[in-house]
């Protein structure tokens, strides 16, 4: 596929170098600080990159271990979506970071590639307000629907108290309509109130 695939075993390039060669436009940077391989990618083309990470036999990242975001206020770009992956076959790990600017908090959803991402993305949206395009059901997970704001953002004070939620209207009682033919003059029995 690429020249790096033919290098001899004694000089096996790190996985991140392989990725950078395969996706030169997507990969912005890579490092392995602390022995933890990390690659920083652009939002454009991230789905192709993740699909490569899952399906290419040299990567084979079948476990999507974690998906979260970091708020680096006041640094720009402000947010970073951080995905941790693990391969059962090769037993290697990778961290993929997608920096996003304030005001453009949207990335593509990877829940079609790994089902685990579904709930992780919901939680990320709940806590940071980052939208995931293509997610089947993006709604709050840990917090209640009337919650105002996204608490893990740095501009949300941790001592802030939310207003009391007014009592929700009781849903209409589920009334079973039994299609029964009653003789004339007999009243249909009503459900007990």
């Amino acid at each position, binding site marked *: 596929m690429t020249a790096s695939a033919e290098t001899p075993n004694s000089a096996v390039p790190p996985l991140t170098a392989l990725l950078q060669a395969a996706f030169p436009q997507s990969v912005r940077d890579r490092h392995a*600080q*602390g022995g*933890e391989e990390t690659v920083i990618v652009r939002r454009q083309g991230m789905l192709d990159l993740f699909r490569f990470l899952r399906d290419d036999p040299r990567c084979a990242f*079948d*476990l*999507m*271990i*974690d998906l*979260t975001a*970091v*708020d*680096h206020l006041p640094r720009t770009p402000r947010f970073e979506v*951080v995905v*941790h992956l693990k391969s*059962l076959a090769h*037993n290697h*790990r990778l*961290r993929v970071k997608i920096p996003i600017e304030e005001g453009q908090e949207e990335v593509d959803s990877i829940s079609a590639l*790994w*089902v*685990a991402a*579904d*709930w*992780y993305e919901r*939680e990320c949206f709940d*806590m940071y307000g980052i939208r995931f395009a293509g997610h089947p059901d993006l709604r*709050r*997970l*840990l*917090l*209640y629907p009337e919650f105002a704001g996204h*608490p*893990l953002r*740095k501009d*949300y004070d*941790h001592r802030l108290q939310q207003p009391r939620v007014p009592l929700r209207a009781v849903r209409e009682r*589920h009334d*079973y*309509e*039994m*299609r*029964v*033919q009653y003789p004339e003059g007999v009243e249909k029995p009503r459900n007990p109130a």
Partner: protein
Amino acid sequence: MRRLENLDLGAEPMVIEIGPSHPAMHGITRMLTKLDGEVIVDLDVDIGYLHRGFEKEAENSNYIQIVPYTDRLNYVSPLINNVGYSMAVEKLFGLEVPRRAEFARVIMMEISRITDHLTCLGAMAMEVGAMSVFIWFVKAREYLWELVEEVTGARLTTNWTRIGGNANDLPDGFLSMLSDRLTKVEAVIDEGDAMLLRNKIFIDRMKGVGILSKERAVSYAFTGPMLRACGVPYDVRRADPYSVYPELDFEIPVGSVGDCFDRFLVRMEEMRQSMSIIRQASEKLPAGGYLTHDRRASLPDKLDVFSSIEGLIDHFKIVMEGPKPPPGETYTAVEGGNGELGFYIVSNGTGQPVKCRVRPPCFNFVAALREMCIGHYVADIVPIFGSVNMIGGELER
């Protein structure tokens, strides 16, 4: 009398809320189930009732202050959370923990793993009717909590590890107490084994229930006993060895089908393996210190604090400013009772983390609950949810 054939009975799915406050909900989880008779047609799991803002609080505390918060994550195995978090911060600092402290951590972590499994299996047994087994396992758990209380001072809110080691050494007489209690716990586990594992009622409730195929389990990023029950031998202690696990000999129990019975069996066998690990570690326990001498993150001995100026300054800096790891980030995983418990900590050089993320293992299991329950009866929710071992503190932090 009107004959039954003349009646036209319509039916539509019934929505039942298995409300947050429910004896079988292991804490508080709300399930909106859509039922067709007794069969579950759809299921929506609503969590968040125990969300306490661990990550937000961690961003506003210094690194030593976060250790008590980690106790309350997976609160049935608090020492595993303590060790996992401390390991992550030690990685940021590049600190070495003394060998004696490492062995002590392994002993306490495996004790925590046994208490986690005893709680899960006891609750599972109780909910399908075997109340006695729950009482026996709780009794066994009490023996282990006596050990934890000897060492840390508390049964659940242990707060035992520090950055670079532990808060205190294992007390005198601990090892003999340990072997005595382990014998008693093993006897109780054997009783539970004899009561349940060849019991037709128990097997009928558990076998074939809540099956998730290996491919789906991997796509849901299952780890721990749930993944091993599906047949994948993934254990963080073997895959990414940490602490002194490479020197200890243990097997990884693996299931085949991935139903509730397999998960039960995997956890039962893991308890026995944990006891073997504890016995090996207590034999190999070396002499030495319990806390590193590196003063960037650990408080010095009181004798040094009150007799030398360096000790005084070190103590002052750590108490007032907290430990300050160099800027960087780390993802460190340990094998929790439920699976891969990961800590992702981002530091910018100040005393408070930019991000202190916990990767909760049971989050994935509860996300998969919908798929595992659809098609089963309402009564099957109980063994399935029990086998998932949802711990609210860990799921929702």
